[in-house]
């Protein structure tokens, strides 16, 4: 028997009211936890999906450009002092930065030109396993190459050279089979032929050489500038650019979801806290006699205030615990209904559970603080006369 006996007993004096209050707050916490879990999973899922729509960092050799004009004639831009990139070293360097966990794909490419008959065409050597994850928008007519002598033709290139899946074509003195023709993408891919990187390197005599690499970085709390800075440190001979539009688009999508979740959570929390505050106001008014009695027995304002706060805190901590577990469970259902998780699982974390209980307990105590302090401050005789 101590001071906690009073709030503990009172909490269950009116079980229906306590349970109703607990239910309302639990539902609030459940919604917040479920939304948070769903936003986390969807955020990760969205990042992975967004990463498949292209790279957000470009690694290319450092070069100097000279615009050549003479006699009023523009002779075009000339590149000089181009230091080709080593595929092995560059990929290894990118994969070894401190934030390497954020690197989801590294796709090296070697660009060369050749002719089909008299018509020039660009041939891009790629590693299919690295390329396809970041080019999910490629829709092939046919299937992607399974052998080194198979190529993919961009839509305009196929049209230009009359290529269809199953055709053979001679490139740089070697025969290739067209495995697929890409549907129009609206980008540079439409005008080129795509072949196996090692094959292109071998034919052109540029073993281990690449023209540039596309890097896809996951952007959860996207430290894209840090990733670029670390890559620059590792690759001083390379020019590294963040494609900020892509990054910003990804960040905006994820931030939108997070802001939405935060806003809804705040509304739920404020509503639930208001209910606790109102309930406590009514409880304080109902229990003025108890307050007067306790004060007449020498309980200070602080001790009476403590009793009411503990009552609110009990509701808050219980609601936090029940809400966390039910929200965790509800997030599975929500994700399956939304069909957005794709194998991702909500995260159960004991620290989150404790934090939730502490946070919700604090919110309920804060909501109860004003009516509790107001009630505790009433002069004992007035509290006793109130009934």
């Amino acid at each position, binding site marked *: 028997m101590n001071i906690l006996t009073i709030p503990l007993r009172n909490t269950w004096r009116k079980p229906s009211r306590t349970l109703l209050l607990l239910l309302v707050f639990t539902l609030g916490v459940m919604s917040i936890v479920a939304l948070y879990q769903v936003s986390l999973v969807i955020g990760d899922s969205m990042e992975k999906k967004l990463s498949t729509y292209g790279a957000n960092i470009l690694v290319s050799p450092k070069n100097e450009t000279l615009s050549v004009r003479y006699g009023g004639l523009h002779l075009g831009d000339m590149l000089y002092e181009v230091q080709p990139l080593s595929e092995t070293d560059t990929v290894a360097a990118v994969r070894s930065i401190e934030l390497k966990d954020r690197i989801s794909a590294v796709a090296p490419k070697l660009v060369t030109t050749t002719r089909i008959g008299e018509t020039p065409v660009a041939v891009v050597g790629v590693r299919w396993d690295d390329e396809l994850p970041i080019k999910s928008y490629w829709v092939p007519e046919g299937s992607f190459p399974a052998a080194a002598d198979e190529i993919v033709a961009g839509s305009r290139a196929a049209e230009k050279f009359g290529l269809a899946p199953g055709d053979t074509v001679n490139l740089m003195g070697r025969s290739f089979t067209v495995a697929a023709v890409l549907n129009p993408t609206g980008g540079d891919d439409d005008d080129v032929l795509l072949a196996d990187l090692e094959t292109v390197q071998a034919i052109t005599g540029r073993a281990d050489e690449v023209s540039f690499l596309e890097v896809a970085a996951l952007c959860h709390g996207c430290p894209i500038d840090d990733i670029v800075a670390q890559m620059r440190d590792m690759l001083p001979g390379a020019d590294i650019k963040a494609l900020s539009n892509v990054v910003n688009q990804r960040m905006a999508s994820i931030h939108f979801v997070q802001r939405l979740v935060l806003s809804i959570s705040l509304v739920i929390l404020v509503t639930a806290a208001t209910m606790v505050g109102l309930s406590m106001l009514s409880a304080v008014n109902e229990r003025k*006699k108890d307050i007067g*009695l306790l004060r007449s027995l020498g309980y200070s304002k602080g001790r009476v205030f403590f009793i009411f706060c503990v009552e609110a805190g009990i509701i808050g901590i219980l609601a936090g615990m029940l809400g966390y577990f039910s929200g965790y469970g509800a997030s599975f259902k929500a994700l399956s209904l939304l069909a957005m998780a794709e194998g991702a699982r909500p995260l159960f974390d004991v620290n989150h559970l404790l934090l939730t209980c502490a946070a919700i307990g604090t919110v309920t105590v804060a909501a109860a603080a004003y009516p509790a302090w107001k009630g505790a401050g009433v002069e004992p*005789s007035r509290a006793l006369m109130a009934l």
Partner: protein
Amino acid sequence: MLQAININKIFKSEGAETRVLNNISLEIPPGEFLSIVGRSGSGKTTLLNVLSTLMRPDGGELLYRGDDLTAMPEAGLNRLRHADFSVIFQFHHLVPYLTALENTLLPFMRSLKPASGELVQRAKDCLERVGLAGKENRLPGSFSGGEQQRVAIARALVKSSRILFADEPTGSLDKKTGEGIMNLIAELNREGLTVVMVTHDPQYAELAHRSVMMEDGAFA
């Protein structure tokens, strides 16, 4: 021991002021049984509230063992209410969700430190003293009015208070039960407890050593 000097109390309501206590002076020596009688609205309950520190007066002095209670900070008054003063009310004022034993021990449940076994035993003894042995674990709702008042008296006893303030302690009880309560209070007074009781029943007032009559906020 407890001395009131020129105590004034004014109630304000909707701009109107009512002087409820008008220059009341009173001395209560240790061991006295004082009854305060008077009609409803004469100010006797207000005087009891002021004397027991449940209400601060608007003027005058209230001296207790050398201290002026009107100037004493809230913390000091809390200590006094906890240790020296006990109040029992007309409507018993028990905490309805605590058992008889817990209600008796309520003065000692002010902190996180649990009531000691010795205190629990003392509370049980007090309940036995007021005739409630074996009913320690019952809730107030299952008691009669007289029994509830006995729990309130047991609560006053357990503190070993110096002064018991009783506001119409038999007001809500039938005659027989009321007499039992009054006999108990008189017995406690004989054992040395100072009693200040408000009543409008002349029969019970006669049990006191001294009676003061109040009328319009002053002694008649």
